[in-house]
Every structure is written in C-alpha cells, then in structure tokens.
C-alpha cells in the first residue's frame, strides 16, 4: 500500500495542479520559450497550405494498451490542430500509424479537425491510414506516402524505434522536412541524427502548446516543470541523506 500511496499522491497532486493551472492560464496566456523544431513545425503548416503540398503526420507503431500510448495521444492532439489548419488545402494532411486502434483514432481526430474548421463534408477516411502492423511494416507503408504523395514535411510524433531512420532517409532524398520526436530512446537518437531540428524527451509532449491546441496543453507544461523540480529536489535530498548516513 506504501507504493500505491506514493502513486496516488503523484496522480492526485498532478490532477489538482493541472486543473488549477488550466483555469489560471485561461486568464493569463502562457509565454513559451522557443524550440527550433516546433517553430519550424508552425512554419511548415502554413507553407503546406500555401504551396499545395501535403503534410504527413506519422504516429508510430505504439498501441494504447501499454506505456507507449501517451506519445500516441500527444501525437493525436497535434494531428487535431494540423487537420483543422490544413483541411481547406488542395492536399490535406494525411496521418499514418502502425497500430489499428490508433489508426481508428487518427480518422476520428482528422474528422473532428475538419468539423471544427466547418468543412466536415471534405473529410475522406483514407487520410487516416494504418500503413502496416509492426515497426518495419509500418515504416515500409509510410515510406510510400513520403515518396509518392507530394509531401513537404514529415511530422513524426509517437513511438518510433530505429526504423524511423528509414523514414527520415526517404524524406531526405525527397527534400522533405523532418520534424521528429519519439518516446523511445533508440528512436530519439536516430531522429536526432536524421532530422534538421530534433525534439528531445518531453518536448514531444510540448508540441500541442506550441501549435495552440488549448490552454490545457500549456498548463501541462507548467505541471511537468513543477513535478520535474520536485523530482530534482527529492533526488538531491536522497543523495544528501545517503551521504550523511540518514538513510
């Protein structure tokens, strides 16, 4: 019960902080520090609508029933904003995933984006795709989109392993901008080496706040910062206590 008590405490504190800060942020908008990759993301969304090219949002092959689901949900929140902004484009954004559950959610999310933009009738279900089941099957299917559908930017947000190098390499050959973030360490290092601007660690979860997905996203960043400082103090306190022989 001791372990569960800590978990319950963390969840409860986070929930209260998130609620309180979301209400507070509605009154005073958040000031965000610059992240090069997210600034570029903002720019490529606008450019794709202007020059009639397509954005490819790739959500990786993580499922919802395990710890990788968080990154896919973060990717879906960004997809919602991108779908809304690019819905009136000649070539609207397409989304790919390697998990059928996430595939269904991408279709729902894109449709919601179209409806929010007031063009629900333009939505086509084939813009949300399951390109393959499993990491390599997914990558092979997603390569096809990058190479054949006049894509100007590959936005990879979700669970990617080393197979993301195949996507990044194909994008590079087609002069397609790559913006990538993964919750997997191997995927992160690969994307760091292969993309123009890399997103590291929790920056994956910050993207929603940067594309204006809502005040709750900005509040999430503040909650993460608060919790991170708490963890830093606990780690330093634990190290000091161990050094002093208290524990």
């Amino acid at each position, binding site marked *: 019960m001791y372990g*569960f008590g800590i*978990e319950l405490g*963390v969840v409860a504190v*986070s*929930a209260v902080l*998130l609620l309180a800060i979301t209400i507070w942020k509605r009154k005073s908008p958040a000031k965000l520090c610059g992240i090069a990759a997210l600034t570029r993301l903002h720019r490529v969304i606008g450019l794709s609508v202007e020059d009639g090219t397509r954005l490819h949002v790739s959500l990786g092959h993580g*499922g*919802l*029933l395990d710890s990788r*689901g*968080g990154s896919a*949900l*973060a990717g879906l*929140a960004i997809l919602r904003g991108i779908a809304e902004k690019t819905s009136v484009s000649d070539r609207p954004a397409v989304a790919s995933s390697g998990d*059928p*559950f996430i*595939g*269904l959610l991408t279709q*729902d*999310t894109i449709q*919601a984006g179209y*409806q*929010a933009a007031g063009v629900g009738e333009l939505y086509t*279900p084939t813009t*949300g*795709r*399951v*390109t393959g*089941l499993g990491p*390599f099957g997914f*990558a*092979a299917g997603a390569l*096809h989109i990058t*190479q*054949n*559908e006049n894509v100007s930017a590959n936005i990879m947000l979700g669970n990617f392993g*080393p*197979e993301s*190098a*195949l996507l*990044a*390499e194909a994008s590079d050959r087609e002069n397609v901008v790559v913006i990538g973030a993964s*919750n997997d*360490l191997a995927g*992160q*290092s*690969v994307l760091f*080496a292969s993309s*123009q601007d890399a997103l590291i*660690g*929790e920056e*994956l*979860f*910050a993207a929603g706040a940067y594309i204006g997905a809502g005040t*709750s*996203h900005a509040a*999430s960043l503040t909650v*993460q910062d608060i919790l*991170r400082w708490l*963890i830093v103090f606990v780690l330093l306190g634990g190290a000091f206590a161990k050094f002093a022989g208290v524990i």
Partner: protein
Amino acid sequence: MRVLTVLIAITAGILILVGYLFPQFAAVQTLLLNYAIIFVGAAALVGVFNILFVHADKIRRREKGSVYSAFLIMFLVATLTFGIIVGPGHITMRLVVDAIILPVEAALMGILTITLLYAAIRLLRRRLDVISVVFLLTAVLVVFGSATLPFGDMPVIGTFLRPWVMQVLALGGARGILIGVALGTLTTGLRVLFGADRPYGGN
C-alpha cells in the same frame, strides 16, 4: 451522443486507473482491459481493411507507385484467404512467415544499419554545433570500444571509457529523458481523463 462517448471514455479511464491504485478494483480493471483486448483484435481487422481501401483507391486514381499497391493487395488477399482456409499453424503459413516476412524484415534491418551510418556521417553537414560533435564522438567512441579485436578489448577505450560513458553518462541521461517522458505521459493521460483532449470523435 458525443456526451455519452466522453462519459464512457472518462469512466473507463478512471476505473482502470483506480484498479492500479486500489487492489479492490482490480477485477473491474481486468474486465475492462479484457474488453479492450477484444476491441483491439477487431480493430486489427478494421486496420487490414483500411490498408486494402487506401491502396485500392490509389490504383483507382492511377497514382504514382500504384503498381506496388496492386502487389500489396494481391498478396494481402492471397495470404488472408489462405490463412483463413488452412489456419495460421499450417506448414505453408509458417513458411510464408519464415521464408518471406522474416527475411524481408532482416533485409530492412540491414538497410537500416547503413542508413544510420550514413545519417551519422551527414549529421555535421546538417547541423554543425557542439551537441552534434559530442553525439558523433560518443558514437565513434562506443563503436570502437565495442569492437572485437584479436587481442581482446581495446586498451583504455574498451576497458574504461566505453563502460564509463555507457554506465554513467548515457544511463544518467537516459533516466533524465525517461523521467521527462513519464511526466509528459502522465499529464497527457490526465488531459484525456478530464476530457480536455478527446481523440475519440469529440471536437
């Protein structure tokens, strides 16, 4: 209808979370997760049909690369039909996996090795900064430190530097990144539980 969807999603999410925190609710949590596993199975079938429709649409529109789509549909339908008739345990089905799918994935893995090496070489051309230089030097150090030589480990690099980089610097950094990812996952999950993010059909 939309309110009902949100209500079901939030209630299910809270019950599963409560199941982790209070063992008394573990049975409800297991029941809901079992339902979810059945839904995932059904979703896999929907995913297969999605692949079929997307590629059939490409062929119909005569889009670039539609010949690959035709191959995909042909083999997908053949494998699916054959698998349904003889069952997944049949020797021919196992042959499809062992002689086609596994070698193709192994070939992709081989391509991946070269792709990663190429990406590492081009990193400095794409982004010349301190972090990129450190990243590349660390990768070179670890590769040399891991190399098998006739006389054993490479002195200093293999015996001291590589273990120190991997077990102190890399492990510490990895833990920091994973803590950040865990916090991001926590707040994302809470947003879904509060209904602020609704990836299931809500505006």
